[in-house]
């Protein structure tokens, strides 16, 4: 329970930090595609007989870099390309999983996550990643702000857009990858959308509503 709480807090902090920039740079759908493609990484790991957790992170990083490369090279609209990648990687993942047979971890755990199954090594990795994110975003905050606001203005000031973009994408993919275990593919995909702190707020709101509803029901009946 303590591990679950700590894991949730670490994920929430990282999500808040990168999520705000993700939304402002209109990368929400990108992180969505990234989250769904994680299932492909997991299924490839299972097919090769490797531990899915070990395969997941390198796969997420490589996948994110390939997608970024494609986005820079193609003349297709961003959302069209992301949609193609997103649905095809999901379809390939489902087909691959059907070859694996019965996965004892269960598909539900992958899709919805199991925060109680967060282990100590996961926490150590999350804490390390949070530290890296804090240092990187903290030291380059001004650059990140100008880049988010107006790219040509940042280039004119000597900011290397491609280096910053790659660093941000790598961090984002690692954060999405690490959060899969705790909150699952479906939530991690949306997790950068409302950003970390608002997830906590949403969960609290759902919890309070769940507490309040039976009482309201009683009142309604009375």
């Amino acid at each position, binding site marked *: 329970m303590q591990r679950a709480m700590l894991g949730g807090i670490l994920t929430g902090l990282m999500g808040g930090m990168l999520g705000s920039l993700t939304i402002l740079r209109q990368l929400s759908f990108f992180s969505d595609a990234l989250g769904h493609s994680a299932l492909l990484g997991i299924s490839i790991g299972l097919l090769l007989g490797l531990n899915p957790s070990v395969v997941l992170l390198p796969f997420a990083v490589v996948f994110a870099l390939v997608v970024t490369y494609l986005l820079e090279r193609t003349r297709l609209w961003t959302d069209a390309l992301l949609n193609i990648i997103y649905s095809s990687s999901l379809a390939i993942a489902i087909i691959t999983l059907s070859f694996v047979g019965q996965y004892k971890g269960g598909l539900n755990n992958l899709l919805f996550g199991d925060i109680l199954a967060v282990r100590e090594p996961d926490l150590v990795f999350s804490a390390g990643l949070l530290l890296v994110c804090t240092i990187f975003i903290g030291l380059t*905050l*001004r650059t990140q702000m100008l880049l988010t*606001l107006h790219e*040509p203005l940042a*280039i*004119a000031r*000597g900011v290397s857009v491609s280096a910053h973009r790659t660093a941000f994408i790598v961090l984002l993919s690692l954060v999405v990858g690490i959060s899969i275990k705790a909150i699952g593919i479906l939530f991690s995909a949306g997790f950068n959308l409302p950003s970390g702190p608002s997830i906590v707020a949403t969960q609290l709101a759902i919890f309070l509503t769940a507490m309040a509803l039976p009482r309201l029901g009683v009142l309604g009946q009375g």
Partner: protein
Amino acid sequence: MKEVVLAVEQLTVHRETYTAVQDVSFSLEAGTDTAIVGPNGAGKSTLVQAILGILPRLAGNVFILGQPLSRKGSLAPQIRQQIAYLPQNFLVDRRIPMTVEELVGLGWDRLGFQVPWANSRKRRHAVRDALAKVDALHLKQQPIGGLSGGETKRVLLAYCLVYPRRLLILDEAPAGLDMRGETEFYQLLYQLKLEEGWTILQISHDLNMVRRHCDRVLCLNRTLLCQGTPEVALSPDSLSAAYGSEFVRYHHRC
């Protein structure tokens, strides 16, 4: 002879399938105001973007304050800090929660690795002084999304002057302003130019303004057609070479 702030040698820039700028050479001396004129699609914005390293160049050299701009568009940070650029359309997402003070502050920062609170007092003073100079101190806490066109231009000028610059590159800076806004913008710009000693390279469609204020004019239509004082470069012959003879007849009738 005055110091050369910007030197461009045989610059050629390709855009996708065509050559947008070919074999352009010129230089700017310190304290001068140079205008680039030419019809739409002449490659004016492409030229300044290649000078700044925003667009890659195919051939040629660019020297800013004596330092070469590398092929990949990188330049020594201390030189970069002395250049300011105002883009043609400063289109930003109005939902970005940034205040005027934060935007102007970004003009002051040297954009490398630094803790966010570094030199905060100096920075705050510089931002306040810059906003006071453009008469926009009252906008300090306002979100940039809520600014009017004229206010945005004033704030961008504050972004330029918050740190002592040598070279200002303006890409149709007063675009989108009405006549009064444009006059006010140029008044402020030239007052600041005197105070700050800026060298200016600007793209302009307002030939009357160019005649009144600029020391030199570059007539561009993919290649550099002529350069010189406004009297020479804006003569009917030069204009008809750049814009076509129809334009010159129309312009003279007005």
